């Protein structure tokens, strides 16, 4: 028992099972400071785990029941062996041996009101798949981005009091680590399963080792786990960009360190409260924690005259900052597409010509997600530092913004609509879009049905195309019917639908022209032999009831005809004269070389594959250039 530097009001013990997990246990060993004692259940043969425990002052218990009755990895039994050894009048944190808690976990936990009858979990975790990612995040709290939340208190972190009735894990149900935690959580009434307002880091990928360790070592040499952190370059960058008369804005505040650094080099630093240090938190537990964090920040930055108090990140705050008044925008949070798409239009115009955006978390190899977002929206940074800070100078912010994020055409009466149902369609859609733009200069809207496609949103933002994330009508209906329902969300009075897997080789105005005399116009691919929406192009007026009728008919037929529901519905509407079939056939869905003359829209199910591009040699280079541009290369 060692490592505890806190004077606790509560006695808090820790328990984990670690078998062939010494690499992960090494990474999370700094948790030891939070606990009055930490018991690790392992096996006698696992000498590496024992070595880690000895170095960090954890207690060791050899399990006798881990493989009881031939069990593969009976984690519940092993945990119960450990629980028997702990003090029964105290709290216990049962955590997985790959979970790193916040540096100030114990201090903040002491402020929370805990009910001994409850089971507590954490409100989220960040999966760190590589050691460099884990190390970089371990050194830079708060961890607020890319968290995984669960609706249940699950086993990576359980806090409960050992004096209560429900103080042992159920051992029936499975002989591995897959379900014991859910069964345990279920034994607590719903009102007694609660979440603490803290999050953690998860070293390595999750959900792979339920039947014992199968994943590769997290690192080869344990020295790697605690190698000295790479020195922050913030001071160097601030010194170079700052100077007399210079002004900066600091987006987000948590600890006082960044503010102190900026205050040394800039005459004025406006601090923006990105993480909600000021804002009333929605629940009492969060509010308690917020007050602690706010008070700590205030204390750490007291006396810095050129640092403003944290300001709300609101339209009023933005309006009070003149355009072209800032030399530097210092962005602390992890770059995230959803936030940056709001942030850049709001803040770029505040930057002086030649001003700089400074950020963190840039390393294309280690953190590909945030790095790609920066590349895509801002371009490759001018400076990339070893601690993952980056600097992008913007010569002409207004021009840069107009080029990078052009505004979609406002309130167009007619336009072309695409529907994207899944990520696999994105590339095809972008190729189709590029072909359309040669022949159609009006408005385009992309409807992303279901989960928002980040890559499509970013691409549409860069291209000035209206993007709308709309609901997927029913999880039980096939894509063709859901695609039809998505079209209800078209913003245009007169719309033309094109499928993602089509190339446009001529003007599509003929479809709009048909609406001068008809409420709708349907144009199927003649070679397909079917009437699938995905192999057709069609136009409709908003006042037309054709989508509603077609969708209802197809949905009604689905239980009886399955995937043929849509062709059936189209056939019925044609027969009833509710659907106007264009007499000519400018849509072709057969082999390209057999396309009749006059073909305008060609359907290629495999358009996303590179081969499709080579069907049209004169276009290939242009399409590829567009894709390169979209990728930010």
């Amino acid at each position: 028992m060692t490592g505890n530097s806190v004077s606790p009001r509560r006695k808090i013990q820790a328990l984990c099972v670690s078998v062939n997990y010494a690499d992960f246990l090494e990474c999370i060993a700094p948790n030891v400071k939070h606990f009055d004692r930490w018991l690790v259940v392992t096996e006698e043969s696992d000498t590496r785990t024992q070595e880690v425990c000895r170095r960090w002052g954890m207690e060791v218990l050899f399990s006798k029941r881990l493989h009881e009755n031939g069990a593969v990895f009976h984690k519940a039994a092993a945990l119960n062996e450990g629980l028997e050894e702990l003090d029964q009048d105290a709290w216990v944190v049962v955590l997985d041996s790959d979970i790193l808690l916040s540096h100030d976990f114990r201090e903040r936990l002491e402020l929370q009101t805990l009910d001994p009858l409850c089971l507590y979990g954490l409100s989220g975790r960040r999966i760190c798949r590589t050691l460099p990612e884990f190390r970089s995040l371990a050194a830079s709290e708060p961890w607020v981005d890319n968290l995984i939340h669960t609706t249940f208190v699950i086993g990576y972190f359980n806090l409960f009091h050992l004096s209560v009735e429900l103080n042992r894990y159920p051992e029936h149900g499975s002989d591995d680590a897959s379900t014991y935690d859910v069964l345990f959580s279920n034994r607590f009434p719903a009102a007694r399963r609660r979440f603490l307002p803290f999050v953690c880091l998860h070293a390595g990928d999750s959900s792979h080792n339920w039947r014992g360790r199968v994943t590769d070592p997290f690192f080869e040499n344990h020295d790697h786990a605690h190698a000295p952190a790479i020195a922050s370059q913030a001071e160097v960058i601030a010194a170079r960009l700052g100077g007399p008369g210079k002004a900066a804005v600091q987006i987000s505040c948590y600890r006082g360190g960044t503010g102190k650094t900026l205050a040394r080099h800039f005459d004025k630093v406006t601090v923006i409260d990105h993480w909600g240090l000021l804002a009333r938190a929605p629940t009492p537990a969060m509010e308690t924690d917020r007050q602690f964090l706010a008070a700590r920040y205030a204390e750490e930055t007291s006396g810095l005259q050129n640092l403003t108090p944290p300001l709300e990140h609101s339209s009023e705050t933005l309006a009070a900052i003149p355009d072209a008044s800032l030399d530097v925008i210092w962005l602390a949070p992890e770059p995230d597409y959803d936030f940056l798409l709001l942030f850049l239009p709001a803040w770029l115009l505040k930057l002086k010509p030649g001003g700089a955006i400074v950020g963190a978390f840039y390393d294309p190899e280690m953190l590909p997600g945030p790095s790609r977002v920066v590349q895509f929206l801002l371009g490759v940074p001018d400076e990339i530092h070893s601690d993952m800070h980056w600097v992008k100078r913007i010569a002409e912010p207004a021009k840069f913004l107009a080029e990078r994020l052009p505004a979609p055409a406002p309130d167009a009466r007619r336009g072309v609509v695409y529907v994207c149902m899944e990520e696999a369609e994105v590339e095809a859609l972008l190729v189709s879009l590029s072909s359309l733009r040669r022949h159609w200069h009006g408005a385009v809207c992309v409807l992303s049905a279901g989960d928002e496609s980040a890559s499509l949103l970013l691409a549409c933002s860069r291209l000035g195309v209206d993007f709308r994330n709309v609901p997927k009508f029913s999880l039980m209906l096939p894509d063709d019917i859901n695609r039809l329902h998505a079209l209800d969300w078209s913003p245009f009075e007169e719309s033309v639908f094109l499928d993602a897997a089509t190339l446009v080789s001529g003007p599509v105005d003929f479809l709009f022209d048909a609406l001068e005399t008809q409420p709708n116009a349907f144009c199927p691919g003649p070679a397909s032999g079917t009437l699938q929406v995905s192999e057709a192009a069609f136009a409709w007026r908003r006042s037309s009831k054709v989508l509603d009728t077609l969708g209802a008919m197809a949905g009604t037929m689905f239980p009886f005809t399955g995937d043929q529901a849509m062709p059936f519905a189209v056939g019925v509407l044609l027969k009833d004269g509710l659907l106007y079939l264009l007499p000519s056939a400018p849509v072709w869905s057969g082999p390209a070389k057999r396309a009749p003359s006059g073909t305008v829209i060609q359907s290629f199910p495999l358009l996303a594959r590179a081969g499709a591009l080579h069907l049209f040699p004169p276009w290939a280079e242009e399409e590829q250039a567009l894709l390169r541009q979209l990728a930010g290369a």
Partner: protein
Amino acid sequence: MVEVRYRGSFGDNLFQYCFGRLLAERWGHELSALPLPHFPCTAEKVPGRRFLSPFHSWSGIAAEDLQLGTLVRGRELTEPLHARLVLYGWFHRWEYYRSHEAAIRRWLTTAPPDTPAGDNDFAVCLRTRRPESWHEPGLHPGYPPKWGRPVPSVENLTRLIERVPHTRLVLLTDSPMGEEVMDLAPFKPVVMPIESFAAWNYLRTCRRMAVNVCHPSEWWAAWLSDAEEIYAVDPWPARKQSHCQGSYGCGWLDGRPLARPDLHVTEPRWIYDW
């Protein structure tokens, strides 16, 4: 700023829009929500305060804070959250809407149906498919989505149809060729596909109707209607009586008591004991 991200089908989207707009107007925040198809007033701008951060997200059948997994109630709903709030949930609780009926009726104004209901129409909704919201993770384990037996049962419906005076029976169903519809053939019903907007718009003009409370589009049609008699099936076990049988089950496995839907309307025209 309150941002609405829609999920599920038509009736779900009405809850989501109204919940977002109510919060935005109450808090003086800007509303960011796509206008709902067929409801032109939902394209109205709702101006107000705009926050770029901090970020909060509420989801769930009731409003739950995504980060804490706890219900948001009382003061948390009434006092403005100085944050960017993204709503990505269902919000199927009448308590959120009951005091705002007049405003909601205006927001959800729509063109009158081509063929409104006759005075002596009796509209009966017969569903074989579970609502989208029942897919909410954590609430309904063990019930995979599937086509199942209709709600309410044909036996109960037959008794009701015999009792309620009408000259024309209109069956709104997602299974017009199902055996339940055939069983009701002696009543010579007119059959309409229930998933269309036209059917919904017709339903809200009916004076007498039978609906499933758990299907949000039916609930909305009934609540927004001027119907005099609404025969309702409320499948949740906290209620006194349920006509919900068969593969639907009658309740929520392991559902948190406050997190589940509560669309039980305490108006005299809503008749549950039939």
